């Protein structure tokens, strides 16, 4: 079965470029011809996780793997890691700084939104060791 893989770099604190990866993912999925609603769900997740990397993660990379049956987005960063995963998935829980909030980010909706939009989310994170997020979608 054919598979498409694309890798993208995300830079810590680069708010000017934040969101670009998500836009590129959007356009790839559109070009393939996926259902608009599925594309919207993937791009919500891509955007939220991209922002997480920009705000907290340190430098990271995003890889998109597309097959006819599923779409997977891997987001890896070498940041501080997530201390309490359960807490991180609660709506409104945020470790964003004052500056982030002033820019309109850090409402504590990142991971909750990802969970809502994706079919499965796996988090692999250890304090001080970075975070690996695996977000998957079923293509029906």
């Amino acid at each position: 079965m054919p598979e498409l893989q694309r890798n993208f770099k995300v830079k810590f604190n680069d708010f000017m470029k934040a969101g670009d990866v998500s836009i590129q993912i959007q356009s790839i999925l559109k070009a393939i011809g996926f259902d608009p609603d599925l594309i919207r769900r993937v791009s919500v997740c891509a955007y939220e996780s991209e922002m997480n990397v920009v705000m907290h993660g340190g430098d990271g990379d995003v890889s998109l793997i597309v097959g006819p049956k599923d779409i997977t987005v891997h987001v890896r960063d070498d940041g501080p890691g997530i201390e309490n995963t359960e807490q991180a998935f609660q709506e409104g829980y945020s470790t964003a700084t004052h500056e982030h909030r002033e820019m309109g980010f850090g409402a504590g909706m990142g991971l909750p939104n990802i969970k809502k939009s994706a079919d499965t989310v796996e988090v692999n994170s250890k304090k001080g060791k970075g975070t690996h997020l695996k977000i998957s979608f079923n293509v029906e």
Partner: protein
Amino acid sequence: MAESSTESEPVQYVEIDETRCNGCVLCMKACPTKAIRVRNNLPSIEGVCIACGECINVCPKGAIKAVTTGNDYLNGAGYSIVSASTALYPQFGEKVMPNDVLLGLRKMGFRHVHDQAYTNEIFNVAMELYVRERLVEMKSPFPVISSICPVVVRLIAYRFPSLLEHIPPLVTPREIVAREAKRRFSAKYGNSSEDVKVLHISPCPGKMICIKESVLQNNSYLDGAIGINSIYNSLKQNILEVKEDIVLHHSGGIGLGWAMSGGEVAGLDMDCLAVSGIQETIRYLEKIEMGLLHDIDYIEFRICTEGCLGGPFTVADKYQAKQNLKRYVRMFGVEKRVKYEYVKKLYEDGWFFTDQKKIPLEEKPPRISASEISKGIERQNRVEDILRLLPRKECGVCGSPDCRTFAEDVIDEKASLESCVYWQNQKRKMKLN
């Protein structure tokens, strides 16, 4: 009623004058839907044109013209009613008032002249009712996206179909004007509404979309549209000669302000944004598609910078016109002149809703099969393979707007890899080595 076109022949919104064109690539590069190709030194439209007018604006030779209803409107073509975009009002300098413009139109020979500004205010109230209803019922998705700019609606339909459900199924003011004028006219004079023709005077070629391929309605109530520029001189002369003294203009400043960016949302008492210009519009639509801006109630998008005053058919400088418009707003005040209870009743009676409840907006596109997705994936991988051969100068000399589109054209056998000058050079170098 205007006939919607059938699917076979794509509707042309622009015409290219081949004698003026020198085969540069500016129009092709400006096109937001990448619909233009320049082959054999001539541009042609091969993809979906959204009638934004960008190609007209950038063409240094003036070789591209928008297609409108044509100039036979005055010579007995049967256009009894004219409804003008409020962008027309501030085109004639600071001394000319909206009522003067409407009287000038009458003097030009249009039997019935309707002031769209008043309908704009009615529409503002209806939109508030619509958005509040959604807020109460927690009906997502937000933000609600304004349906006023037809080019934005068409752009969404082609490039952001997942956002179609953000567009309210309400009939736009220009269509309401036409619909009601026809109704009233038929009731008064007894002719069937087919005999009554309504002509729109427009700042942009985009209004032709509503007439020919409306996304929001089955059929447009408008019968034709012509550009402000095509009647400008004649109207200006007629305004000077007006002797009649009746009141045709009824709106306050809010309804008049619609022609500038931010004018529509100025009449909405809610959390709004106004975005204008094609690049900004695309950026914000991408953001909405990523789930951002959902805490905003309503967004006004206008393809033209500064709103309708920046339309390709306007005559006055858009910033000057904006000043005139602001003067009107101060003069006529920001208080709405429509009665809330009256509009609410109309709203509840369904007066504002489009004639088609099945709205393409709610119709799900057919799900694509796994084998089609497989083909799509293979195709994108081939695109990447070709892109690796190209230097990514994005020059457009090959005749496609950018390297990625060129690669797609090569796969679709619409272009040959040989038409990339850099690829040819590279091949030559490889041979030499």
